[in-house]
């Protein structure tokens, strides 16, 4: 038994040696510098890939001896985040420039993964063109700026005009409170029982989609909130939380949303965009401002008629209280790795990748909301799709996630609560109580506030 084992150990060591020497041979010499760029690419999301390919061509031509090594990760948002974090854990694998979700910025700054960009931004003339909200999105807890946003988004109600009109609802439709949503949904159900009148995501399968495109629109439209920004504490025991769960329960119990089984399929959104809305089998859903990117030419679910058939309305507050609407915003940024061996060159690449030309192309093809004022003023941006103006205006009523390091678990606890309610496992009161307990266990009694 000993001989094969020894042989295997020897083989293993030899392989490891070869691997290390191969790695060190690739270390950039003085003039041959390599920048490693990591970003996300999927079948339906290629806008960023295009941006980086263009930027690479220009940058390599202008900086002789520099190689830009593009490493797209083909994965959904969650898995991309995981893979990126794993790469960032070690200085050897950390990229120089990477695509970073705004809600991960704070915790990744805490982890020491991101390079502080303040010194570079001062000297970058384009920085003053970014709007204030966008600048805040890349800010760490210490007030320094660590990431430059590519674009942002908002959430709204997307409805199929034909379906609403068949049920006798006049368009353009703008519900003023939650009851008017239920009222319209019931009308649609009565007109055609095979319809999904008004869908809102729920459950763990749709992940952040459940909270960003459903639960927070409800919660932030009540008098309660998820997190007390002043006290830096998580809110528990709020009436708004229970009311929001009750609203979801009503939607699902009355068959106004998709069936619970459909809601718990991680691919449900593909059916919403690809099948139900285009085929007039769904009245309305809550989705992001990027929605047209699926339907426009070159999108994943091309649908020529969307511009005429679809309408957009802002999500109302619970009883129509001020400010009359709710939206949630997220968005993605570019950041420089704290361990980059060529930080100056990395920032130079970042700033050129975000030039006006590149930003405009990305904003238009990715149906993003512009964060650069010069891009926002471009006719090409405003003409990108018929809904740009509507969804851009929602910035005035939008909210951002409290993206602390605890946030992913809190978000998961919210998703669990919605899942328990729509499947009938728990009542809204029980689910809210369970959520409160989970939050207290997670962050400790000192970091929660009863409201």
């Amino acid at each position: 038994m000993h001989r094969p084992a020894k042989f295997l150990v020897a083989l293993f060591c030899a392989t490891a040696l070869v691997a290390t020497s191969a790695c060190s041979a690739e270390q950039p010499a003085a003039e041959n510098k390599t920048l490693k760029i990591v970003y996300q690419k999927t079948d339906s999301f290629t806008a960023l890939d295009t941006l980086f390919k263009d930027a690479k061509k220009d940058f390599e031509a202008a900086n002789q001896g520099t190689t830009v090594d593009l490493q797209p990760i083909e994965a959904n948002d969650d898995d991309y985040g995981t893979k990126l974090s794993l790469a960032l854990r070690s200085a050897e694998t950390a990229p120089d420039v990477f695509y970073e979700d705004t809600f991960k910025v704070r915790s990744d700054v805490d982890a020491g993964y991101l390079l502080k960009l303040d010194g570079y931004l001062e000297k970058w003339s384009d920085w003053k063109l970014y709007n204030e909200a966008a600048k805040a999105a890349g800010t760490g807890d210490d007030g320094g700026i660590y990431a430059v946003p590519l674009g942002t988004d908002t959430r709204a109600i997307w409805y199929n005009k034909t379906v609403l009109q068949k049920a006798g609802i006049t368009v353009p439709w703008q519900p003023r409170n939650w009851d008017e949503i239920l009222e319209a949904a019931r009308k649609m159900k009565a007109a055609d029982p095979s319809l999904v009148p008004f869908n809102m995501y729920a459950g763990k399968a749709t992940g952040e989609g459940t909270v960003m495109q459903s639960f927070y629109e409800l919660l932030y439209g009540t008098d309660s909130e998820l997190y007390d920004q002043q006290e830096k504490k998580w809110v528990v025991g709020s009436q708004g939380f229970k009311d929001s769960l009750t609203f979801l329960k009503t939607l699902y119990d009355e068959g106004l949303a998709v069936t619970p089984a459909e809601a718990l399929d991680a691919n449900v959104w593909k059916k919403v965009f690809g099948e139900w809305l285009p085929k007039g089998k769904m009245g309305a859903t809550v989705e992001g401002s990027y929605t047209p990117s699926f339907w426009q030419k070159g999108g994943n679910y091309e649908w020529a008629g969307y511009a005429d058939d679809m309408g957009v309305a802002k999500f109302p507050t619970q009883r129509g209280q001020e400010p009359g609407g709710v939206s949630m915003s997220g968005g993605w940024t570019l950041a420089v790795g704290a361990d980059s061996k060529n930080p100056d060159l990395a920032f130079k690449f970042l700033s050129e990748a975000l030039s006006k030309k590149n930003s405009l192309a990305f904003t238009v093809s990715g149906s993003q909301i512009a964060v650069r004022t010069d891009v926002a003023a471009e006719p090409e941006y405003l003409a990108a799709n018929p809904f740009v103006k509507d969804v851009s205006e929602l910035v005035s009523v939008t909210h951002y996630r409290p993206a602390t390091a605890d946030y992913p678990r809190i978000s998961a606890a919210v998703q669990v609560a919605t899942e328990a309610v729509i499947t009938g496992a728990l009542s809204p009161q029980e689910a809210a109580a369970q959520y409160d307990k989970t939050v207290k266990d997670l962050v400790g009694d000192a970091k929660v506030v009863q409201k």
Partner: protein
Amino acid sequence: MLPVVPSVLLILLFLAAPILWSFHASFTNAALTGRNARNPAWTGVENYVRLLGDSAFPAAVVLTVVFVAASAVVGQNMLGLLIAGLMTRARRPVAAVVGTAVVAAWVLPEIVAAFAAYAYFSKDGTLNQVLGGAGMAGADWLYAYPMVAVVLANIWRGTAFSMLVYRAALADVPQDISEAALMDGAAGWQRLVFITLPLIRSSIATNLMLVTLQTLAVFTLIWVMTAGGPSNASTTLPVLAYQEAFKFGDIGYGTAIASVLIVLGLVFGIAYVRLLRGDKR
């Protein structure tokens, strides 16, 4: 005992380093992001104490044991033996066709097999269409019976391994003993229980050990088919460990769950070794 030794040694050799690392990490607050990402602190048994108070944990242990018992010990193992036994008697072309069909599921990469199983069991999937064609109403299998679906999928995927092990073992059973027993008037089941099974006993133990360890670690299949849902109804320990370590970025807690999984594997392993030794007396 002896036939199991090489496999145990190989597994130790190639898993020892990650296991040690994972075991060490389970006593820290290592995280994917946030303050503890690069400088984790030693927290002692805190993660294990938390595990005991976590309601998702006992449920995951039970589901893991059910999954292993139903899909590996009973499903793959018994079905593999049955198919191998039948194949020794079947005509050559029949045996070849059956063998190919069974092995086909096994040679697929796990992710492909997982998507195939998803496409089969999903609401508009093959199973429901076949049932619909026959005039029967299907169910939403992945939602209503998630554990049944993943157990069946794992039996489908893994039976080939047991079948191959048992075909080799049965081929080594000397014909003359069987024939002698036949002369003495032993019935079919008697020959199986008193002659064949004792002769292939060590293959059975090795096979049980390997399929158990493989099945304990099954992740992709479950993750693709149900992602542990609905409401944790199919969250086995590997799925739970993945969620904690990578979805919530809590590597310390995730590795603590993984360590429990390793202990569970050891318990199964020791049980099989004992079983084998006991038989030899």
